[in-house]
């Protein structure tokens, strides 16, 4: 049960990363590998501030802002200096590796002693339940875990709703149109370059927010924690699209959150069954490969309609 709750919490936290990837990959059609660096940046900034005794909410917000800045840099490299979008992301991701080491001062910052948003949740749980354990459906569960899970669910839902609302504003719709048809939105007076910079900042802000929260939940920030995270995000987005379809943005956002949680659960189960953790990235990459290729491959075997519909 603890394992299940742990997987759910991490899945929910990483769904913020997946939402960030949704913005760059689906809305702007740019696989943005800055993600790998900005999740670690968010974790590093939050961790180092927490160790210094900064309020956890402020530290988390600072981590998210750091990620947004990194995303903006990628956007500027791509739009102002006309560097290929993938290469812009690679450059920033590589640079961030050094930046993260500088921020942390070493390759790993433990947070065991620090007060974090996770410890808020734990206190809340114990206070509400009046004890160390509660029973959910007859299972004994640590009240701290249950409270953190509840908070993670609440926060993720709020973040998803905020993203949905944002993409229905004047600025948000202009951003969607930027990804959809830049020529059209430029002819309607929007600054396409600025929109891309803002969009990548938003995307990496979400990613770094996930990093800041993940560090606090798992109790450390680590310079290596970002490796392969963009592929993780892609996998979540793709599973989400299979679950809810892509007909509306709201459904896609809900799907992405569900996709992240489901993917994390599958991974937890696979690890439990004895999957070698070293194979995890390989399997994630293979999964995304299959998800990208299979739809087109299957279409070839579908009977074609004989007349136009």
């Amino acid at each position, binding site marked *: 049960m603890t394992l299940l709750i742990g997987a759910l919490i991490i899945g929910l936290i990483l769904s913020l990363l997946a939402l960030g990837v949704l913005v760059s990959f689906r809305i702007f059609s740019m696989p943005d590998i800055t993600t790998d660096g900005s999740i670690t940046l968010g974790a590093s900034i939050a961790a180092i501030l927490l160790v210094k005794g900064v309020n956890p909410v402020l530290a988390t917000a600072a981590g998210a802002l750091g990620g947004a800045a990194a995303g903006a840099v990628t956007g500027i490299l791509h739009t102002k200096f006309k560097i290929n979008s993938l290469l812009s992301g690679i450059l920033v991701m590589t640079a961030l590796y050094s930046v993260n080491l500088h921020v942390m001062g070493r390759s790993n910052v433990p947070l065991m002693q620090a007060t974090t948003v996770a410890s808020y949740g734990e206190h809340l749980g114990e206070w509400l339940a009046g004890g160390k354990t509660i029973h959910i459906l007859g299972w004994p569960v640590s009240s701290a875990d249950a409270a953190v899970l509840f908070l993670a669910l609440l926060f993720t839902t709020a973040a998803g709703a905020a993203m949905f609302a944002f993409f229905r*504003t*004047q*600025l948000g719709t*202009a951003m*969607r*149109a930027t990804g959809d048809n830049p020529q059209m939105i*430029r002819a309607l*007076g929007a600054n396409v370059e600025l929109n891309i910079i803002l969009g990548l900042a938003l995307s990496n802000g979400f990613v770094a927010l996930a990093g800041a929260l993940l560090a606090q939940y798992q109790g450390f920030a680590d310079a290596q924690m970002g490796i392969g995270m963009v592929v993780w995000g892609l996998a979540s987005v793709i599973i989400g699209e299979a679950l809810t379809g892509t007909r509306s943005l709201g459904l896609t956002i809900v799907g992405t959150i569900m996709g992240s949680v489901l993917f994390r659960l599958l991974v937890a189960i696979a690890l439990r069954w004895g999957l070698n953790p070293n194979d995890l990235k390989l399997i994630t990459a293979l999964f995304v490969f299959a998800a990208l290729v299979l739809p087109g491959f299957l279409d070839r075997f579908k009977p074609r309609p004989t007349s136009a519909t």
Partner: protein
Amino acid sequence: MLALSGIRKTFNPGTVNEVRALQGVDLTIEPGSFVIVLGMNGSGKSTLLNAVAGSFYVDEGTIRLANHDVTKWPEHKRAKLIGRVFQNPFSGTAPTMSIAENFALASRRGHARGLGWALSPHLMKPLRERIATLKMGLEGRLDNAIGSLSGGQRQALTLLMATWLKPELLLLDEHTAALDPKSADQVIQLSDEVIQRDNLTTLMVTHSMQQAVSLGDRIIMMHRGRVLHDIRGAEKKRLRPEDLLDRFDEVRRRELLDESAAAMLNELYI
């Protein structure tokens, strides 16, 4: 009012692909004038429209529009003054977004875009009424993705979007060339209606002689990056398609003469 003076533009200068697309264009268009731009392929007519719209900066010359010197304005800033419809029906709309959202974007042309809701009730009512006048049955499908519509429908909607806020200048770049004849007629009729109703200053590029004689109050014929003929007033009203074809033939003969002369010179001297 639109005033171009001494506009020159060379693409890929100094390379084998050098194209002198505009070679000194001077043109003044009075407010409310509906100008048809004709010319053969490569004559520079689309380049002229793109220069005005700001798709690129001109090498020489100035562009003034509605009392602003817009020569150095980037494309998105000029969009405040200019409405555009492109040749490709896919170019003017965001396909995965709904009809209503596309119009919401058009209703902010030239205005700051903030965190207000894109789809406001102020927009929806007039939008539904206006789209109903198209008689395409689209007023009940405002939430459908615009990418699901036909080229003709999309082009009609693009035209309404471009003119939703009255532009100082409307640019139509062969906007019916990619449509089937029936849709093309519909879109042309709609264009004429909108232009007459709002008294829009318009530049329209077309290949159709029929459209050229029946629409507008002035014809500009481009050739090799310059304005070759400028037909207006009573002469424009009298003009028949055959007259235009004659002028095209004249241009073509001159072209042929140039080429055969060049071939002869080549043979004799090289």
